[in-house]
């Protein structure tokens, strides 16, 4: 351990060193990572100016569930908080860094086996270190009969992304909905298999029926700190006969409500059978530029939020309207024809709407627009103000009613102008019925003033949104308590329930204290104050 390493709060250096020795007895010295160089790799790479407040004291890298069991038992004896990550690429939400400074990162990346691909039943059983590239390769090796639902950047974990309620862009878009059966190591070292995995001796049913018998536990381990997930069954989309891409553009700044209201019924009855993303004018300009490696200074040099008339001119010169939506449909060719006819009929009624489509057919190479093969180029957006960059999100869940979405957008846009950031905003249709309004603030990490402004903007948006009754679907480690506060019904009954469960399962609070605002009795003293 180097001098500058933080200690877990409340743990003496002697105790910590003793624990490190015991951890090494489980995973070997090479995989108890304590050097400054190694700890640096666990800082939040896109941190909004506070990376050190979330520094870990060490990282452990086990390869089996048995090792995880042994590690949590040691952590319990020494009261050492562990922060489990699967691949730790939770960029924009904290990367691999813990909420509580001095926690030990439990890095599950080396548990990287695809344990089973079942083409007949349409699922895979994976370990936490399997990322979307790994699973994609494993499926391709078996003929590509099943498809993943990758988030925009694909180097995150299939398990980590599902646990965070992450999204991909196929009909299986919400990865948490595709979870079927888990193996979980509890804080006391016990191992549970959920659903049909509990049947002893088990057969072929673990990954085909979610509910088992009695309470369903799977979702309880998502966005929580109640256990360490060591295996997960994930349902996969059978390769369709065809895929259609839709790019629909509406001309005027006032067209957001009609865009939302036209899409809603088409999504509700599953004519649109995968998530759509609406992009505001800023995002429509910035995404293609970033993908080509172009930064802001190549089109605009002034401070503040780029003026709307400049943005409008830029889009018009490219023949695009102010509001754009993109989505893919998955079906047979004939099925796509029917869907396309309904969508075109709906948008024919919207003045100025332009609808462009493309198709892919089974047997052709997968095309980039299908968003079914993993890529990393979407991360390029963080360089908008020149690197080294980062971004933080505001991500409230909003009902897809045009006037309501427009009200939230208006609130967001005013704040971006006030704080002087280009108002990059997407509207992600998550889970069929909802929209997550998702403005992203890009900032240059070397510009301390800009980074501070980005943080302030996030806090102000949280307050504005909370005052209007909105809650976010996910949060960066710096803002987990802020978002938990939005869910305050009946004197924070939801958080009180979470804390009760936490205390029952993990009385010493050794698993991920502060995750999603859940601290438990043992660690609550550390809430809100970095060690």
């Amino acid at each position: 351990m180097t001098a500058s390493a933080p200690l877990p709060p409340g743990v003496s250096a002697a105790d910590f060193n003793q624990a490190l020795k015991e951890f090494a007895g489980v995973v070997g010295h090479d995989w108890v990572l304590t050097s400054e160089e190694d700890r640096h790799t666990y800082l939040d790479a896109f941190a909004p100016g506070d990376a050190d407040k979330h520094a870990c004291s060490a990282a452990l890298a086990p390869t089996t569930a048995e090792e995880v069991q042994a590690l949590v038992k040691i952590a319990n004896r020494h009261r050492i908080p562990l922060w489990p990550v699967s691949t730790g690429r939770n960029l924009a939400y904290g990367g691999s860094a813990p909420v509580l400074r001095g926690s030990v990162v439990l890095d599950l990346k080396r548990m990287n086996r695809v344990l089973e691909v079942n083409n007949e039943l349409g699922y895979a059983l994976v370990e936490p270190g399997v990322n979307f590239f790994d699973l994609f390769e494993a499926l391709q090796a078996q003929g590509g009969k099943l498809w993943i639902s990758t988030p925009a950047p694909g180097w995150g974990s299939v398990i980590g992304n599902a646990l965070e309620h992450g999204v991909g862009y196929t009909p299986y878009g919400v990865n948490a909905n595709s979870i079927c059966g888990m193996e979980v190591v509890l804080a006391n070292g016990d191992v549970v298999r959920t659903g049909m995995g509990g049947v002893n001796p088990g057969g072929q049913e673990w990954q085909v029926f979610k509910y088992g018998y009695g309470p369903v536990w799977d979702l309880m381990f998502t966005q929580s700190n109640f256990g360490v997930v060591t295996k997960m069954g994930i349902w996969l989309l059978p390769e369709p006969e065809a895929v259609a891409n839709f790019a629909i553009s509406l001309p005027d700044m006032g067209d957001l409500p009609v865009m939302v209201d036209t899409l809603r019924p088409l999504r509700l009855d599953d004519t649109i059978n995968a998530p759509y993303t609406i992009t505001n004018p800023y995002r429509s300009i910035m995404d293609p530029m970033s993908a080509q490696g172009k930064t802001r200074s190549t089109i605009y040099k002034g401070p503040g939020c780029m003026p709307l008339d400049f943005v409008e001119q830029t889009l018009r010169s490219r023949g695009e309207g102010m509001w754009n939506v993109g989505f893919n449909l998955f079906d047979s060719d004939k099925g796509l024809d029917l869907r396309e006819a309904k969508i075109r009929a709906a948008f024919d009624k919207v003045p100025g709407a332009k609808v462009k489509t493309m198709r892919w057919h089974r047997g052709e190479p997968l095309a980039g627009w299908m968003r079914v093969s993993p890529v990393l180029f979407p991360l390029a957006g963080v360089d908008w103000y020149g690197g080294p960059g980062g971004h933080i999100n505001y991500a409230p869940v909003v009902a897809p009613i045009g006037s309501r979405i427009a009200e939230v957008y208006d609130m967001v846009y005013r704040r971006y102008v006030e704080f002087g950031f280009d108002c990059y905003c997407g509207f992600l249709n998550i889970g069929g019925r909802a929209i997550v309004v998702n403005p992203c603030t890009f900032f240059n990490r070397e510009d301390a003033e800009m980074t501070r402004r980005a943080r302030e903007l996030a806090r102000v948006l949280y307050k504005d949104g909370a005052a209007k009754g909105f809650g976010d679907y996910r949060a960066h480690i710096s803002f987990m308590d802020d978002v938990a506060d939005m869910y305050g019904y009946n004197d924070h009954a939801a958080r009180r329930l979470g804390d009760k469960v936490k205390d029952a399962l993990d009385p010493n609070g050794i698993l991920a204290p502060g995750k999603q605002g859940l601290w438990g009795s043992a660690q609550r003293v550390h809430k809100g104050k970095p060690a």
Partner: protein
Amino acid sequence: MNGIRTLLAAAVAAAATAGVIAADAPLTAQQQHGRKVFDIKCLPCHGPGMWGTNALARRMPLDKAELEKRTDLNAVMVKTLMRVGIGSMPPIRKTEVDDADADAIAAYLTRNSPR
């Protein structure tokens, strides 16, 4: 992994420069292993038309921006930047690329550098 190369080639099919890697002197076993790891861990950002390549092209000639075509890299630099990160490239952890694989990547990327 060939899958990822094919995928990337498809993704940048529009870019006229996209293509196979220039023919080199035969690779040593370590360099071959390095290329394999590079394909999985680095190529999605350092292939033609990808983020890392585009970012580097902002501060060096395009023909140098692709790491595999460089002739001026040295092993210490490659390994250090991999671990520390550079610009917006996040650090690559040991659990993702261990030290032996990092050495192999460095051996592959410096195969055409003067020694």
